[in-house]
């Protein structure tokens, strides 16, 4: 679709940026010491810290990715919401308080508390960097992808803008300003998502037409060589189109070009079919874009893709429901019929590709159950490996949250273990509430008549646009600031790993607190520049699954060491190092050899992949636990045990 950038969104976003950068400079004087830079002097009030958890954790992937997935496939996106939230249970009940007691500035501090080992600092520092960079790339690419439709700038402007603003936030006042930015972002995100959901419920569901796409029939199935259907000439199926007999092209009534239709059987008892109009976007060999055979554009002889997303049938044949309660909304949808959109590429001999987007009328009851998305379809197919893959993903989400370095360092910003506990509870409340909202945002977008068939990442902002221009501007600006909050946390975690764990801890370079802060600021700039470069380089790649990598690697490398350290007195230094290294290498190796990576990164057929399924967690997390136990038993007992656990 072609978006008109909203100047209102630019203004709202700029106001936020100026506000946060101004705040950072104002707070800058408070963060000159290393305690201030890395841990905000441990003086952040627990409530603020709790909301900042939400600001840190709810990345663009959560907000845009989950809403988009629910809008396109229904319940499946919500599975991520459930897994991401469940991870906080591990954080609260197992990790929060000991983490606060053991550590000082970084995740490596906590692992190393009893041992003072350079090996642990090295291993934990590297795993922090690896996880943070995997997490950073999709955030930066996301910033670039967002900025174009939302604010009207090219991709690189978005990446550079986010990079520079975040560097300013992190360098001026480290953890102090990062916390306040995340607090602001977390509150804005939750409050405005709530406003949006209230408006969605007040609007209710309706069967109003959202575009001018037609349905022909029911009719007898068209014969293979038919010249005309319903009085319109058939465009001959050639140059690739003969491979997809389910699609029929009819000459456009408007003149040039064609309309594409998908043949859809009426039902099992009837031989007849409907012809449902879809949309065809051709990327020609010379990269020019065409819609239905005419150039993409808004001019007189041009066409653009139409918005989609509608309810086709409401219970009892009603046309509109009026305002609905939150539960009523779901029960009504369950008894309705909605139109989801599938896509199918048609490859042409000259190197061009036409993506055909076609409507799939779907009963609401199917939308509200797991198993529609390709990633999860395996749980309905009965294939055991697909089921193990699903279990593995849900396991990694559960274990991953409490091992993400940028989340863990937030435990050092509060004054004591009780404050760590309270702030986690506030975090769970705000994050859980937000995830409940994601279901309504996604379903609202699914039925808003505002979806873009080419990308579902825009679902939440487009839903807002279907309600009001103002809300669109605000939600767009918030989506963009979502990136700022998460990226600052990641850059701060990385700079701590470089300055505190690797340079000062592992290489043994003696640094005073002030010098450590200076080194950390330089490291933050370097990581920031690397993030900008990667964000521009990976522009073309669909990188949202990198967040999944980060969760799997974090859960495999960090969680076993942290948990065993807390609950098994026999854990040794060598055991921890081995566990972090084995967890990191095995999960990364598995990912690099998996079908997902073969397909999306190397462009190789998925069935050549070496790993039996894509998600490593269910193998590599137990492997890291086992490694720790075996190596610890083979090495001498630690002399003294510091913690009470």
């Amino acid at each position, binding site marked *: 679709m072609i978006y008109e950038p909203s100047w209102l969104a630019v203004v709202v976003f700029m106001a936020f940026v100026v506000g946060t950068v101004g705040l950072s400079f104002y707070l800058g004087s408070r963060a000159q010491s290393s305690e201030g830079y890395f841990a905000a002097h441990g003086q952040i009030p627990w409530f603020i810290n709790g909301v900042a958890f939400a600001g840190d954790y709810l990345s663009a992937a959560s907000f845009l990715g989950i809403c988009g997935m629910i809008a396109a496939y229904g*319940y499946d996106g*919500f*599975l991520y*919401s*459930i897994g991401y*939230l*469940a991870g*906080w*249970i*591990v954080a*609260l*009940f*197992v990790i929060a*308080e000991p983490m606060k007691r053991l550590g000082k500035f970084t995740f490596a501090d906590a692992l190393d508390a009893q041992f003072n080992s350079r090996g642990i600092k090295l291993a934990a520092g590297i795993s922090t960097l690896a996880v943070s960079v995997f997490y950073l790339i999709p955030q930066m690419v996301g910033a670039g992808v967002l900025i174009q439709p939302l604010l009207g700038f090219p991709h690189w402007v978005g990446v550079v803008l986010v990079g520079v603003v975040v560097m300013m936030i992190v360098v001026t006042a480290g953890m102090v300003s990062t916390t306040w930015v995340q607090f602001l972002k977390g509150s804005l995100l939750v409050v405005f998502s709530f406003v949006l959901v209230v408006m969605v419920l007040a609007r209710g569901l309706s069967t109003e037409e959202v575009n001018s796409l037609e349905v022909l029939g029911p009719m007898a199935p068209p014969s293979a060589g038919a010249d005309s259907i319903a009085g319109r000439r058939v465009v001959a199926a050639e140059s690739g189109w003969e491979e997809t007999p389910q699609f029929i092209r009819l000459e456009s009534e408007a003149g040039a070009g064609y309309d594409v239709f998908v043949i859809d059987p009426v039902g099992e008892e009837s031989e007849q079919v409907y012809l449902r109009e879809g949309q065809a976007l051709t990327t020609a060999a010379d990269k020019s874009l065409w819609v239905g055979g005419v150039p993409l554009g808004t001019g007189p002889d041009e066409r653009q893709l139409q918005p989609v997303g509608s309810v086709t049938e409401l219970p009892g044949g009603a046309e509109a429901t009026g305002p609905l309660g939150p*539960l009523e909304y*779901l*029960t009504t949808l*369950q008894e309705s019929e909605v139109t989801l959109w599938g896509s199918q590429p048609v490859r042409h001999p000259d190197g061009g590709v036409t993506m055909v987007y076609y409507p799939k009328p779907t009963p609401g*009851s199917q939308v*509200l*159950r*797991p*198993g529609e998305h390709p990633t999860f379809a395996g*749980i*309905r197919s009965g294939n055991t490996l697909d*089921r193990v893959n*699903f*279990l593995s993903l*849900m*396991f990694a989400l*559960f274990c991953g949250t409490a091992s993400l370095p940028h989340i863990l360092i937030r435990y050092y910003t509060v*004054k*004591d*273990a*009780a404050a760590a*506990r*309270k702030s*986690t*509870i506030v975090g*769970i*409340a705000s994050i*859980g509430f937000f*995830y*409940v909202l994601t*279901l309504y945002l996604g379903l609202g977008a699914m039925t808003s008549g505002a979806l873009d068939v080419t990308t579902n990442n825009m679902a939440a902002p487009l839903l807002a646009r279907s309600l009001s221009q103002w809300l669109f501007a605000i939600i767009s600006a918030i989506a963009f600031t979502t990136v700022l909050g998460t990226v600052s946390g990641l850059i701060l975690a990385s700079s701590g790993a470089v300055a505190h764990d690797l340079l000062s801890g592992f290489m043994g370079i003696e640094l005073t607190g002030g010098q450590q802060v200076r080194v950390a600021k330089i490291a933050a700039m370097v990581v920031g520049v690397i993030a900008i470069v990667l964000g521009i380089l990976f522009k073309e790649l669909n990188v949202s699954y990198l967040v999944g990598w980060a969760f799997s690697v974090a859960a495999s490398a960090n969680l076993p060491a942290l948990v065993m350290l807390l609950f098994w007195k026999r854990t040794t230094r060598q055991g921890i190092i081995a566990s972090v290294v084995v967890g990191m290498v095995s999960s990364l190796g598995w990912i690099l050899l998996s079908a997902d990576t073969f397909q999306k990164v190397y462009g190789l057929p998925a069935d050549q992949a070496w790993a039996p399924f894509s998600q490593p967690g269910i193998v590599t997390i137990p492997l890291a636990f086992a490694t720790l136990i075996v190596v610890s038993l083979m090495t001498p007992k630690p002399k003294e045990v510091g913690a*009470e*656990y």
Partner: protein
Amino acid sequence: MHDISPRRFNSRLGMALFALYLVFYLGFVLVSAFAADWMEATVLGGLNLAIVYGFGLILLAFVLAMIYGWGCRSDEEPRA
């Protein structure tokens, strides 16, 4: 419950609540993976099991977190 330090008490309470949540989460994941059809069954007020169980897990996380926050004993010495 007599001679145990607040820290140990809190840790035990945390583990108990963790185990409870784990059972429910595991149930959800296993039903989704091995009996996905059950998720379509209408169970409560016209809502299907997928919605009720999913919302239930989010609500349970919050309720357990509140129980933990309320039940934990203070274990910090006052600081200067």
